[in-house]
């Protein structure tokens, strides 16, 4: 079936939802995270979680790392009316500070997010795509030590932050 313009718009909105999810993790932005899900969404990792339980888990897990980076590649979306299936390939890097288990290292998970997306909303307002059900699967992981190497940034500092003090917030248009 050839794509319609409507399908393309829906796909673009659905892809953005997952990119906002990545940003929400990396900036630890719970409001943004919540906005990716319908209130009754179910998230399956080891067990089924509701949105609030998932947020609590994220809060506990993300705090263990000094940086996270959710890098999304393939985004395959199939729209069927007001529902859609999506698969997002995402490489999640987690920097772990030196501790009693080892030196500073990056734990890198190659995972896929499989979603049932639903467009719900006000009559005549076009509705909003959000995640109704999400299953997270991890295909493989790596643990790579951080070696003393080249200076972090020649001639400058990194400048980012894992909260709303990140400069990306001040530059927003709204």
């Amino acid at each position, binding site marked *: 079936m050839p794509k319609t313009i409507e399908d393309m718009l829906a796909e673009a909105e659905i892809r953005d939802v997952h990119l906002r999810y990545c940003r929400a993790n990396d900036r630890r932005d719970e409001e943004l995270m919540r906005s990716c899900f319908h209130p009754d969404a179910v998230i399956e990792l080891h067990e089924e979680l509701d949105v609030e339980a998932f947020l609590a888990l994220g809060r506990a897990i993300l705090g263990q790392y000094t940086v996270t980076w959710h890098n*999304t590649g393939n985004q395959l979306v199939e729209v069927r009316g007001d529902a859609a299936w999506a698969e997002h390939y995402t490489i999640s890097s987690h920097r772990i500070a030196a501790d009693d288990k080892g030196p500073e290292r990056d734990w890198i998970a190659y995972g896929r997010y499989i979603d049932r997306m639903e467009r719900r909303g006000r009559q005549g307002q076009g509705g909003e795509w959000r995640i109704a059900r999400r299953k997270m699967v991890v295909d493989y992981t790596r643990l790579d030590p951080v070696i003393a190497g080249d200076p972090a940034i020649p001639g400058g500092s990194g*400048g980012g932050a894992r909260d709303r003090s990140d400069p990306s917030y001040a530059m927003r248009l709204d």
Partner: protein
Amino acid sequence: MPKTLDELAAESEIKDVHLRFCRANDRRDEELFRGCFHADAVVEMGDASLTVDEIVAVSKQMLDRYAVTWHAVSNQLVEVKGDTAWAEHYTISSHRFAASETAPLRDWVAHGRYIDRMERRDGEWRIARRRFLVDYTRTDLVAAGDPEMPGGAARDRSDLSYAMRV
């Protein structure tokens, strides 16, 4: 708010600007690089705030230190508001250092984000203000062993991609 077709087209143009920026770095194409920015654009890195001429000069100096660079873009989040837009582009920049007397062959890999204020002027989206943030970096040694690929790439306009342009 559902996207409109006009917004989708604007987002596509804006994403392309950053992909051209990456190509401009990796092929050291100053003309292409300049074409990504409005003439009065400001580029902020660390504590520095640079004009287009200044970022061109800094980039040239930095790029010449490496044997290869590769700017790989992943998440591109764009929000269009009329003739302005906000964008965040996740980009992994790999920089291959040749072996020297003091250090072996290695890749310096920066995981960074480009945060942009885009403006459409005279119908064309370009960067009006860009802030470059680096979230983390790695240095990975290059191990010997795997076979060499045919190659054929160049870091200037002798690269095969130029001759194939339409």
